[in-house]
């Protein structure tokens, strides 16, 4: 099979993994080398699904000895199979990189023979790129859950980012659909990564010469909508991962219908907007000081599809409003619907010099109609609106089209 055919199969098989950003870290090639990593990663292209093409995202192979039901590569699937040699992946990465098509490589793989054997193959690609070719572009390697500590340690020396996928939001879901996987094993791998990241950071504080370990940290991916598990449980798992293993990102990937699907799985994919709401809620947890039970209270364990989670919260907690833009502390401003972190920080600066008016807000390009009922400015005070039962209707964006359109961007910037 020629390389192009393999590429077709192995890129297709990798496309269901959403965790494909390339931000974080800093690298620079020597005179003889190639590549750099500087701050925010670059999206070199976009496919008609609206997603960014930043890394060469492929599987080393889609042969797999496991049988995860939601995955097209499971052993019982009769999909076409292919396998790259490590040298082929190295060649392809360098060729693409030199033409400025990509920021680097995102290499994952089905499990062949054993987790350790698979991990060794991935490491071989990374080692060759870094040591033989002086490649300093971005490298994201999959950490195969259950691979030995020594191998994880080695992978982190070459990779910018490592990720072990948690796959499903609860252990019960895993038992049902991915019998060979468990929270315990994946958690063990995540723990090893986070410990080594921390250790390397400490060492480098003492001596900048100490080796870097996965400087862009670790991420994970959760498939949403393959089981009936509610958003509350999904966010709860995510928030525990953030605290326990210091994850950089949790990616939510709406279960995508795959060819030759198993009868245990739903016949349809969850609405695209659900994934979008989860990303919004995720940002609220990490940067806006919200707790999981505020966003998904027991009586409403799923996020609203119509309202963004912050607006939904504000409508449940009207007594917290209106908030005075000229006086309120940062935490209170962050909870105003339509107010993003960047806007809040700008306002805090602006109000040191003059009293903020509606015109100021308009120039900062905030969604004023949505925000007005919730704020007080030097020249505006909402009148009774907050108690009106029609409030929800008034502040809801006219159609969901807008939010779908902005979703990709919001997932990146998290401005709510």
């Amino acid at each position, binding site marked *: 099979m020629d*390389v*192009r055919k393999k*590429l*077709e*199969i192995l*890129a*297709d098989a*990798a*496309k*269901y993994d959403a965790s494909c950003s390339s931000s974080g870290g800093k690298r*620079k*090639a*020597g*005179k*003889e080398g*190639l590549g*750099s990593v*500087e701050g925010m990663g*670059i999206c*070199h*292209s*976009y*496919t*008609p*699904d*609206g*997603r960014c093409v930043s890394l060469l*995202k492929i599987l080393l192979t889609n042969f797999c000895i496991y049988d995860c039901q939601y995955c097209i590569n499971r052993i019982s699937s009769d999909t076409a199979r292919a396998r790259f040699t490590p040298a082929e992946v190295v060649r*392809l990465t360098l*060729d*693409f990189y*030199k*033409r*400025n*098509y990509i920021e680097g490589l995102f290499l994952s793989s089905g499990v062949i023979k054993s987790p350790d054997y698979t991990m060794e193959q991935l490491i071989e690609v990374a080692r060759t790129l870094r040591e033989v070719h002086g490649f300093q572009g971005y490298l994201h390697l999959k950490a195969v859950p259950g691979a030995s500590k020594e191998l994880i340690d080695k992978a982190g020396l070459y990779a910018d980012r490592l990720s072990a996928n948690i796959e499903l939001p609860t252990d019960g879901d895993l038992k049902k659909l991915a019998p060979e996987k468990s929270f315990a094993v994946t958690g063990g791998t995540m723990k090893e990564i986070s410990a080594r990241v921390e250790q390397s950071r400490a060492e480098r504080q003492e001596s900048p010469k100490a080796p870097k370990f996965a400087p862009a940290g670790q991420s994970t991916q959760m498939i949403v909508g393959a089981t009936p598990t509610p958003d509350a449980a999904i966010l709860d798992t995510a928030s525990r991962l953030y605290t326990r293993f210091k994850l950089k990102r949790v990616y939510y990937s709406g279960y*995508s*219908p*795959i*060819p*030759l*699907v198993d009868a245990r799985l739903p016949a*349809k994919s969850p609405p*695209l907007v659900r994934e979008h709401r989860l990303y919004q809620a995720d940002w609220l947890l990490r940067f806006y000081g919200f707790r999981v039970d505020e966003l998904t209270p027991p009586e409403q364990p799923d996020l609203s599809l119509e309202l963004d989670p912050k607006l939904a919260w504000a409508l449940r907690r009207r007594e917290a409003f209106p908030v005075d833009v000229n006086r309120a502390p940062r935490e209170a401003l962050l909870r105003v619907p339509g107010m993003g972190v960047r806007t809040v920080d*700008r306002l805090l*600066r*602006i109000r*040191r*010099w*003059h009293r903020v008016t509606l015109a*100021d807000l308009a*120039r*900062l390009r905030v969604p004023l109609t949505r925000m007005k009922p919730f704020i007080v400015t030097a020249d505006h005070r909402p009148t009774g609106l907050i108690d009106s039962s029609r409030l929800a*209707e008034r502040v809801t964006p*006219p*159609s969901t*089209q807008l939010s*779908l*359109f902005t979703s*990709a*961007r919001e997932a990146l910037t998290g401005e709510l």
Partner: protein
Amino acid sequence: MRVEVGPDLDSFRTAARGLLARGVSPEQVLFTEEGSGQGSLLAPAVVPASAPVAGLSVPPAFLELAQKVACHRSPERWGLLYRVLWRLTHGERKLLEVESDADVYRVLTLAKGVQRDAHKMKAFVRFRRVEREGEEFFIAWHRPEHFIVRYVAPFFARRFPSMRWSILTPDASVSWDLEQLTYGPGVPRSQAPEGDALEEMWRTYYASTFNPARLNVRAMRAEMPKKHWATLPETRLIPELVRQAPQRTSRMVSPKLELSESSRFMPEHQDLASLAQAAQGCRACPLHERATRTVFGEGPAGARLMLVGEQPGDQEDRVGRPFIGPAGQLLDTVLAAVGLEREQLYVTNAVKHFGWVEGEEKQRLHAKPGRSEVLACKGWLDAEVAQVRPKMILCLGATAAQAFLGPGFRINLSRGQIFETPWAKAWMATFHPSALLRMPDERARAQARIHFEADLRRAADTLRALG
């Protein structure tokens, strides 16, 4: 007074220093660019470039902004920069923190434009490999919006230190010879290399990494503006990928060929009249229990356009004909406006029985059919398509569209686009006319109406083009 600058930041700085030192306020100066006006009235030598002006210190943030703004194509930039500089040095030292100030806002907007353009240049430059005298060169032709070649070139030097490369643009060019950057004049596209054998491989990757189940052309366009497509080898695949997406998705969603429940009720001869009659006895899903009668499709067997709605409504259920209620009237109006005649179309619904719930005043309120009812009724729809064999199918609303393409289809994302499908050469979905009547928000309703008319017009044009 008229002052001529560079047009580069250094020459502006020199001029501005001189002006500030002499206390010339922004209203008194007009900046022009070299070659665009008469000679300078202010010799740059009035104040030597390196001499610090007493009391003149500008925040580093300004210099950083000015560096970007200077690359902008807008002729207002020098005047604007000088105004901000003046205000910074005349009592408003913290001006840049007031991002809502009109001048600051403008400066930031220009800077952001340049920043974005620079970012797109880093992203969209595509090198092509050529060999000359045994040496390997990488050459790209790119069309930036602003004068950013010098601003962005160091990035490429850091990233590709071991390659000999050149980036050519209409305004300027730059080359790296493994040691240093050399700048030159603009170069027309015709002088850039034509292709690279690797581009076929890149296109293979691009096509394979695309997920047709999540088609979202608008998001793609927002991030990858069409003006850059000409120099991106992968973009030529886009129309084909978009066109085939629904077909590929439908293969993903309905992998097994399930037999629709209603197939049990199919007549032996499947001409339209027999089908319509047999459907009167259909009991394949619970909907028939509460409805008055089956409302089958109507229209000539050879119709070139087939319209598919959701399900009959209250009036249709009483009379037994599709699209005669308020939604049907709206539909007729728009059809007439775009030059389509209802009599020549085959009009039907995805589900043939009226589904309803009781309202507060005992009226029958339309209830959206579920997926299982749609699938149960699909047998009738398929039989109609097979008989009519339309050149084009126009689905009104998500239910109809999803009856063909599965539940992943989104009206909001894919409305108005023409797809090639197994059922008809051209296939399109748009809003259901009753959605236009129901939308609570007036603006949204007017907007949707415009889209609806445009979609129908496009459908009519497509139909004509199909011959």
